[in-house]
């Protein structure tokens, strides 16, 4: 594949493309603050951003400590989604029979709100990390499957024929043609999946856990401590953004050949 010089490109990206959203974030905070003042939104509904920042500053070590378990559960759940989602999608895309049996059931299981069944996980798996991971996995799984199925099915039949004509086994053809073709779609599924995995982990923590950001959140809801709750929300959101960004970077590394990455070479409209 084409060689990359990620060093300078990466740092440039960071400067160019990733400072801007933070600038924008500052704007958002300003708008938040202004609208609170303007519409007189009382502090017991939405706290002022300054209070939240204050909490973030003073409670930083505690919040950081609590965000590890959440991160860990999210990442595990996400990796499981990828690990199971892609093969399941392969099976679904590969066989009409599997599709007609399995797909509706996946959908079936997916439309059930996790928050309603999560308590059962606690009953079965205790108060440890497992129910959180399962919850993150269950939320993250489906988008990967759907996107991957679409990707696998969109491949040019002529390319499949090409590989088939070389007497590649079904699996080899899959690996050489369908899989790379589907990678962009798979990554779009993974991106949705990783943010949902954050939500899943937190829902798991809501339902039963002694640590994690979800625990912090629930505690602050109980004490009506809105600044802490919003601080926890901010941390969750940051966690989501960082994980999303990591997936995006990995995508750029794995599919340098894809059209969406040509901008530096050809003149884009």
């Amino acid at each position, binding site marked *: *594949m*084409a*060689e990359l010089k990620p060093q300078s490109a990466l740092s440039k990206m960071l400067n160019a493309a990733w400072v801007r959203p933070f600038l924008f974030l500052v704007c958002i905070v300003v708008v938040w603050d202004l609208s609170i003042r303007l519409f007189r939104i009382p502090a017991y509904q939405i706290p002022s951003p300054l209070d939240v920042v204050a909490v973030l500053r003073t409670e930083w070590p505690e919040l950081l400590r609590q965000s590890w378990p959440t991160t860990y559960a999210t990442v595990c759940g996400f990796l499981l989604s990828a690990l199971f989602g892609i093969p399941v999608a392969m099976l679904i895309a590969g066989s009409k029979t599997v599709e007609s049996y399995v797909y509706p059931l996946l959908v079936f299981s997916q439309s059930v709100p996790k928050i309603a069944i999560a308590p059962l996980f606690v009953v079965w798996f205790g108060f440890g990390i497992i129910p959180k991971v399962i919850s993150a996995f269950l939320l993250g799984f489906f988008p990967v499957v759907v996107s991957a199925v679409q990707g696998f099915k969109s491949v040019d039949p*002529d*390319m499949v*024929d*090409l*590989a*088939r*004509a*070389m*007497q*590649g086994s079904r699996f*080899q*053809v899959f690996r*050489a*043609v369908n899989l*790379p*073709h589907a*990678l962009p779609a798979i990554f779009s599924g993974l991106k949705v999946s990783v943010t949902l995995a954050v939500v899943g982990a937190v829902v798991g923590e809501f339902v039963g856990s002694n640590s994690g950001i979800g625990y912090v959140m629930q505690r602050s809801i109980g004490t009506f401590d809105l600044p802490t709750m919003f601080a926890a929300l901010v941390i969750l959101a940051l966690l989501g953004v960082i994980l999303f960004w990591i997936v995006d970077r990995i995508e750029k590394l794995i*599919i340098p*050949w*894809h059209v969406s990455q*040509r901008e530096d070479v050809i003149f884009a409209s």
Partner: protein
Amino acid sequence: MQPAAHLRLVSDRAAGDASGIKLSGVSKTYRTRDGDVPSLRPLDFHINDGEFFVVVGPSGCGKSTLLKLISGLLPPTTGEILVEGEKVTTPHGNVGIVFQNALLLPWRNILNNVMLPIDMKRLPRQEYLDRAKSLLKLVGLEGFEKKLPWQLSGGMQQRASICRALVHDPRIMLMDEPFGALDALTRERMNVELMRIQRETKKTVLLITHSIPEAVFLADRVLVMTERPGAVAAIYDVPLPRPRSLDVMADPVFTELVQRIRKHFFSQGSLD
């Protein structure tokens, strides 16, 4: 619908038994949402082992379809195809195919695209790497090994796809207009190279082309097809001695055969 009406079989070469490629009563009709598209009328012919067999015919007459049928990628609507005595149902045997469009995989660089058959057949990569590189050099793509397909010109892509069909040294080559996007010089050079390779390795080659001189220059036999739905209009033996050089193009046998094949096109065409 009377295939016999067009058939003028000039070939007198004896048909082998179990070797080569044998088509009997093979026809193809594509089924589409808005009706059937008949593409090939029943075909019967035989390609001998080690023969250079060239197909010419008007655009849309079913040449590419024929190639896909023989390669086992499409099932025939009627009839059966035997390759080396075995009935074709799926992709089979030791075949190298050049498709009409280059069909390079966008996620592999040129070298890896050429190496695709090696990966598919699980042959030892190292052994074939040099061969792939020397083939690329042969077709003038040295220095483009690491480029991605879209960074190549149309003709360069086509040359890469020819390398891909040759890299695993298959016994049978099926080539669908492999030189269509090449300039005159490169094309003649490639013709000469292909002929040399065929002669040296005794490959069976089925080549589709639009250039009648090219057909006569390369072929042992030339199959001329009728307009869609395609049928056999004629099969001509090319009685030119081998090895041939580009000079045979001046040979009266050559020019006469080219003229004869041209007539097929111009007589059946409804030229206004």
